[in-house]
């Protein structure tokens, strides 16, 4: 995936770029808002990591211009101010997530992964398959209106599978989407996760099936 980082603090920018490149993404780095705006108009990105306090054009202005051009690229905001006003303003302007400095780089990786996952496949907020409905905004799965109690990983797995029903995902793909490339969880733990999810979805009118040697898919039964 191609990611743009707009951050003026050199040491922090370096770290973010290194961290995202380590996840296997192609990363461009703009040191100020104007440069970021140019790059966004020149190329297609799958994600923007945007600092709010920038010299010249502010992160807020950049985000506003981006959304005015009707570009839907997900934006992750970085801010040093934790005031809720910032949160509301940026969400109103169309930010998808925000993090308060100082942040943990593992958390940054996880958020980036979640944003990319959420913005792949079907963009609607409600994913349906059989009697199973997955609400992306509240992150709740329901069967015939009844909430199914799922762990966060089970929810994420379900989200990936349901974004493209019947598509076959390899174990490696799923691991990457859920934990990242160099993650410790083994393929074995993925099998455990699938097993638990299957058990919880009994009677939901869907099934997670295994294509030998290929991977997993979700289908209506």
């Amino acid at each position, binding site marked *: 995936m191609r990611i743009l980082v707009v951050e003026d603090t050199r040491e922090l920018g370096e770290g973010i770029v290194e961290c995202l490149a380590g996840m296997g993404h192609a990363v461009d780095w703009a040191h100020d808002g104007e440069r970021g705006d140019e790059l966004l108009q020149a190329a297609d990105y799958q994600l923007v990591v945007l600092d709010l306090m920038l010299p010249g054009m502010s992160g807020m202005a950049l985000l506003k211009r981006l959304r005015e051009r009707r570009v839907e690229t997900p934006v992750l905001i970085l801010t040093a101010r*934790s*005031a*809720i006003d910032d949160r509301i303003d940026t969400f109103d302007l169309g930010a998808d997530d925000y993090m*308060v400095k*100082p*942040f*943990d780089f*593992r*958390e940054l*990786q*996880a*958020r980036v*992964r*979640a944003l990319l996952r959420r913005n792949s496949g079907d963009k609607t907020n409600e994913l349906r398959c059989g009697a199973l409905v997955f609400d992306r905004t*509240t*992150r709740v799965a329901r069967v015939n209106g009844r*909430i199914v*109690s*799922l*762990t*966060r*990983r*089970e929810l994420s797995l379900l989200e990936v599978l349901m974004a493209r029903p019947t598509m076959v995902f390899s174990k490696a793909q799923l691991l990457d989407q859920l934990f990242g490339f160099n993650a410790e969880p083994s393929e074995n733990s993925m099998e455990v996760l699938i097993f638990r999810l299957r058990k919880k979805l009994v009677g939901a009118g869907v099934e997670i099936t295994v294509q030998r040697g290929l991977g997993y898919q979700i289908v209506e039964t």
Partner: protein
Amino acid sequence: MRRLETFARRLPKSIRGRLRLLLTAVFAVGGIVAMVAAWIFSTAAATDAYDRLLISAAAQISEAITVEHGRFSVLPPDSAFETLAQSQGDRFFFVVRAPDGRLLTGHPGLNAPIPGIPEVAPSLGFIRFAGAEMRTVAIYRLIASPTAKGWCSVVVAQSLDARHRLVLRLMLKIGAIILFVGALGFAVSLSAVSLALRPFDRIGQAIAARREQDLHPLEVDSPRETQVLVEAINSALARLNERMTNLQTFAGLAAHQIRTPLAVIGAQTELILTDRTQGARLARVERLRAHLSKLSRLTNQLLGQAMVSYRTDRIPHQLVELVELMRQVLRDAVPESLDRDIAIDFAPSEDTVFVFGDSIILREALLNLISNAVTHGARSHLRVRIDADRETVAICVADDGPGIPPDRWQDACQPFSMPRETRDGAGLGLSIAAHVAKAHGGSIAVGRTGSDLFQITFSIARKAADEESQ
């Protein structure tokens, strides 16, 4: 209306000044009214007294009218002049006329002001005569004899000097009395005002004389009426004192909490330089990372605490919707990178729950509760419930982690109350949440649920919200 406001603004700012102004106004107006009344009464008294003399003199003259040989004639008696002479220094004129208007005796130019129909009763009036204002009386008398018959008239005019002198004399005496009584009353009132307000001066002096740091209760000997004020000041001082003490304790604790990890980080950084193997260095960096994230959490909590203290009682409360707020908090407070895989169970019984509060500090409190439960609580399960009844809203955050041991429930909400070894957070989360709950008329309860989950209940009053929405 505006003029009234301008006037009110121009009034003196002190009670003493206002009372003085009011008293001066009352006594001035009262004095003037009393003087006017005195003048009216003395004038009436003088007029009445001298009118009696005048009427009596005119009557005596009229009694002296006789008929001789069919002709009217009169010889005014001495007694009449003596009566008139009682008004010392006054000039007087008189005229007596026969029924046909013929002059019998007296001053021919004198006429009654209203030459009316003959009446038995004397008629009084004023005229200008011989260059002066004069009081007149006219008396008609029916003379009936065999030879002549008719109404003879007697008019007597008298200058007003004696009356004026009497009025002046009376006014001097009454005025002196009014002035004396008024001045006495005014002086007594003014000193009463001063006396009544003196305790305030004493309280003010007692406060002004204090040293800056002195927050002990005031000890002022004051009457019962101002004792209320002294007590209010003392209770405010006590609260301030408690707050200052808390703040000092907190600053001391916070300083310790910040300096220790900083020192650890410094030491560990030094040690990296001396570590011989790559593995040892990596382990050291890993530890550094843990300390840094702890310090980040502490910084966030300290800033959160400062923000909550600042906003409490300063920011007006508004309607806040708790279900959506809780969803946001769950999104923000549960790290995506959490190693444990937990199920978050948030099923609100209602779609919306409104309370009256400050959404920013409510959010801070909930962030801390959830963050506590997730980072050092929940093993696999976090359950969040919002229970609302008419008076209160209870937000219950329960997890299947070890929780706080029961012997520490009592002071769990005190800042930094947990021993360092048992916590990896900063130890401010519950204290912040408790502060916010208190600011919303509620409290924090620590306990275990029936299914043996560790549960923190954050309850706040919703009464104000109901009043607002109805």
